[in-house]
């Protein structure tokens, strides 16, 4: 067993243990942090496979961004364990159904991939002396330009959706307008009045 194999088994074991922890822990914040640990170990496995760039992206995008949102959502929950258990039991049949459908779908996808011709060999071998980020950049924006543009459209939809879900107009709040502030001249706010003695303004 090479040190790399040993590293793989350690990473895989911690990955599985923390993934199980996500499911079984009672505290939702702990669950999110265990999921972060899961991603961290997955990034380690990516590195063992030589996919350094993807490993770093996994951490930057999933750990650095997506899980922060999860954490925000979960931190706001005020969980009452007894109530949650009762609700969980009521939703059990529906949950099992959804989980079953998802499992079946994932199995179908995995099996159909395995049946594809040439699935056993890697799709692209890295050219000698080229990093994986560079190899990815060479094909992603030229050979795969349509999927790439579709990804851009999906991001656009996500942006619009995010605003539609969370944005609300707040007319009751004063906002600072820098342009108005700097455009303001002494003449707009005050006038100089010559007051003659004993007559008042």
């Amino acid at each position, binding site marked *: 067993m090479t040190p790399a194999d040993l590293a793989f088994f350690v990473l895989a074991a911690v990955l599985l243990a923390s993934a199980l922890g996500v499911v079984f822990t009672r505290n939702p914040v702990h669950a999110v942090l265990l999921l972060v640990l899961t991603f961290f170990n997955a990034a380690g496995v990516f590195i063992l496979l030589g996919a*350094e760039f993807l*490993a770093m*992206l996994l*951490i*930057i995008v999933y*750990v650095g961004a997506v899980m922060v949102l999860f954490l*925000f959502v979960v*931190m706001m929950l005020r969980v009452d364990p007894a109530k949650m258990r009762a609700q969980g039991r009521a939703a059990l049949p529906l949950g099992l159904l959804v989980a079953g459908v998802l499992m079946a779908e994932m199995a179908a996808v995995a099996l159909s991939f395995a049946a594809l011709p040439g699935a056993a060999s890697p799709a692209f071998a890295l050219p000698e002396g080229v*990093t994986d*980020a560079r190899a990815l950049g060479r094909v992603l924006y030229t050979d795969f330009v349509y999927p790439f543009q579709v990804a851009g459209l999906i991001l656009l939809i996500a942006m619009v959706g995010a605003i539609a879900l969370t944005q609300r107009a707040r007319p009751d709040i004063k906002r600072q307008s820098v342009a108005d502030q700097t455009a303001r001249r002494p003449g707009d706010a005050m006038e100089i009045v010559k007051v003659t003695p004993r007559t008042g303004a």
Partner: protein
Amino acid sequence: MDAVVEFFAWLWAFWPLRVVVWTLVVTIGVLLAVAYLTYAERKVMSAMQRRQGPMTVGPFGLLQPVADGVKLFAKEMVIPAQADKTLFLLAPMGLFVLALAAWAAIPFDKGWVLANLNVGVLYVLAISSMAVYGVVIAGWASGSRYAFLGGLRSAAQMVSYEVSMGLIIVCVVLCTGSLNLTEIVEAPRPAWMQLLLFPMLVVFLISILAETNRAPFDLPEGESEITGGFMVEYGSMAFALFFLAEYANMILMSAMTTTLFLGGWLPPFGIGALAVVPGIFWFVAKTAAILFFFIWARASLPRFRYDQLMRLGWKVFLPFTLVWVVVTAGAVLAFGGGV
């Protein structure tokens, strides 16, 4: 396969030992630098405010950081009753580990780098993007209003400025064509490139102030409103870990600026004659200059308001850096040619 086994046998024989020694040297070096950065900060700020600063402990107060450390070590660690005790202690430890971990990829001199990663820039970016957790978890685990608010604010601030930092790094990568920090330092930089990168250097300097929660963007710990933010419940060594992490991050970000924009260990202004001085000297000098900027900003500028901070990040820096990415790419294609 035999060759691989032999290679690893050779590796285990002595290479990891060397790595451990060098890692310890870097770790201790960073921690010493942190200790004396706190001293330098107090001395520089006091000079700017016509005071003497620490003078009592040791000659010119030079032993002040040691005294501070011993005092923090001897203090009682108060763990609030309503805190999540595990996370309360894990948060400062996590932040401390992250602040040290990023140093693995920083090249101090030609070939003086712990881990010469192909994706060095992304490694540092990934590590610094994880620092958000330390802050949010500290705020949440304390179980105090001020801490919670401070943690949230800090998280929103850090992610906002990470966007512009990412885009600036893309500009640098466009010019150098590599994600490896050593190659980024060594890549040739003609005059047009330096001209293009200069505005990015300015934006990067301001962004790292916000990313490390330093004045004038120190809202997460704004004493006047939220009394110390996410750190309010911390004392003793747990507080010391936060403190060490914050200052180690300051030095790290200065070192990153040096590496990305100022040519790392290379002599300044491309003067070849200055190369007789060892590269590590130039690296430290450039990093120290940027640290001086950190302290200078703290001594001179009043704190931002939160809406101003968010506006600067999202409405000024983000569009500007985004446009600049396209401009830089166009220039690289026009002048750079196919390399």
